[in-house]
């Protein structure tokens, strides 16, 4: 009997890099064991890895080694991980995925709002982390950015036609209000990535909004109904305390 490992929904959305990245992956964590585990995992998949154990080292490595991606622990001993994130974003668009211990919700959201692409909570599943890393890489790449701007966004069987303001699920048209359309459209453009409440509110409702998470709860639940979201294979995922994520639930077919 083969025990099939749980596969993250994201894995098949973006395959392992067959083309070498434009730089190493920088892994930053003050715990040597975690650093080692991630280094081995990344190298086994063909990535080049550099490591750092402090915020200061992280900033130096990012500046000197021009990494293609950064995995950043928020609980660093010298500088707050959120601050490191902010400083990196001052001059770099490198994809950043943050590692957080649970209960540090404010800092997760702060990091995401300051430009981190995604997050994962410790203890995490390595394949899950790497999948989020790949999503972040894709979105920040040239191809990814162009993809976001196309008129037709496809996330599995969900298709968002931005030109005609139409959404279809498995070919079936879904009637959405303007805000609902805006919500789905934004999430589809950043398919696979988490978007914070603030980001969604500001993009869809306007700059003056930012804290009305109850609106999002209502809209999310309405959207789930209209899209026919199956609770066992969710498309629209709630990240409690953080925001929302739109994924392709059919991506974990056995291959």
């Amino acid at each position, binding site marked *: 009997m083969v025990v099939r490992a749980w596969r993250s929904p994201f894995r098949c959305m973006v395959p392992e890099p067959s083309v070498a990245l434009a730089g190493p992956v920088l892994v930053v964590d003050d715990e040597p*064991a*975690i650093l*080692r*585990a991630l280094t*081995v995992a990344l190298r086994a998949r063909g990535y080049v890895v550099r490591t750092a154990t402090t915020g200061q080292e992280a900033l130096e490595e990012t500046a000197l080694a021009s990494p293609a991606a950064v995995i950043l622990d928020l609980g660093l001993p010298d500088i707050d991980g959120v601050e490191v994130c902010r400083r990196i974003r001052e001059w770099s668009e490198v994809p950043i995925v943050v590692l957080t211990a649970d209960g540090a919700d404010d800092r997760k959201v702060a990091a995401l709002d300051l430009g981190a692409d995604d997050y994962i909570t*410790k*203890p995490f*599943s*390595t394949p899950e982390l790497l999948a989020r890393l790949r999503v972040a890489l894709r979105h920040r790449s040239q191809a990814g950015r162009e993809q976001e701007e196309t008129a037709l966004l496809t996330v599995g069987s969900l298709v968002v036609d931005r030109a005609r303001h139409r959404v279809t699920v498995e070919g079936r048209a879904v009637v959405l209000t303007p805000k609902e359309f805006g919500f789905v459209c934004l999430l589809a453009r950043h398919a696979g990535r988490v978007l914070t409440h603030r980001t969604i509110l500001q993009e869809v409702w306007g700059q003056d909004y930012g804290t009305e998470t109850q609106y999002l709860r209502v809209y999310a639940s309405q959207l789930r109904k209209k899209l026919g979201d199956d609770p066992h294979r969710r498309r629209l995922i709630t990240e409690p305390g953080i925001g929302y994520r739109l994924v392709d639930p059919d991506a974990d077919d056995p291959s």
Partner: protein
Amino acid sequence: MTRPALVPKRLYGLAAGLGTLLLATAILLPFRDDLDTATVALVLVLPGVAAALIGRRWAALGIAVTAALTLNVGFLQPYGTLKVDVTDEIINLIVFSGVALLTAALAGRERDRRYAAEERAARIEALAQENLEIRDVQERLSAEALALNLAGEHRSALLRAVSHDLRTPLTTIRAVVSDLRDGTAYDPAARNEMLDLVADEAERLTRLVANLLSMSRIDAGAMVPERQAIPLEELFEDCVNRHARLVRDRKVAFDVPLTLPLVDADWTLIDQVVTNLLANAVRHAPAGSGIDLAARRCGDSAVEVSVTDQGPGVPPALREAVFTPFRKGPGSSSSGVGLAIARAIVEAHGGTITIGEARRGGARVAFTLPVHGA
């Protein structure tokens, strides 16, 4: 309201009045033929006033009447007889009495007011005293509330610290296990390295849990050693063997003389002390450096055990503070119960534990145990 002090005052009043009366009479009597009745009358008002000021109104009245009678009998012709049918005499009597009574009344009111004031003052002082006591109680209560709050915060802080310490090895374990199960092709070296990581972190978790359990036993006052006669060299070897992985990048050396006596101790507990000290030494000493486990006789009835590393050592200012449980050292991510537990165990055996400096600058942690049979 009782005024015990006033009872004698009545007598004083009478005495004063009588005294004044007698005095005045004695002075004026020789001159009664030459003096005007009015003058004598005026002077004889004074005894009544004196009695009124010092005594009460009845004494005053009594003296006043006596003074009037004295005036009548002693200073009006014919001398020595009481004249009752003269209008002047009646007026004299009335006036004397009136003045005496009024003075008594005034004096009395004055006295009443004074007493009331004194009593109020006494009551205020009593209230002030009570107030101070209440304030004291309040301060004590708020200090206790603060202490409880602090204890609550301490507990939260230590729960956070413990959570962090448990989560860290679990993160590595889960990261590795999830990765290996994902089916990526690993070369044997990488795979072994990953499994080594899991093994190390699992051991770390085991030590942490043992420490936490000890910590809770210490808190509950249930740290009671089961003593046996223990050969320390055996305990050291056993301990280091069980933690071979922990010390694999360090050179552990034993220094135990053959003549060392057995010690009276609980094997499991002392093993835990040595484990904690070893773990600390490994954490602080660089790879490849030496860790010395030594034991030697210390006086007639004790043995001193020491664990020495070649790390940065502990600055003198911190050598007591590091024994405080759940106190994080600078840059340390450990919740820091190891030394606190070591101390509790050593002290439960009647020994002491201290940190000193090793010859080459590292830390030397030494503790004493009683010699068996001493």
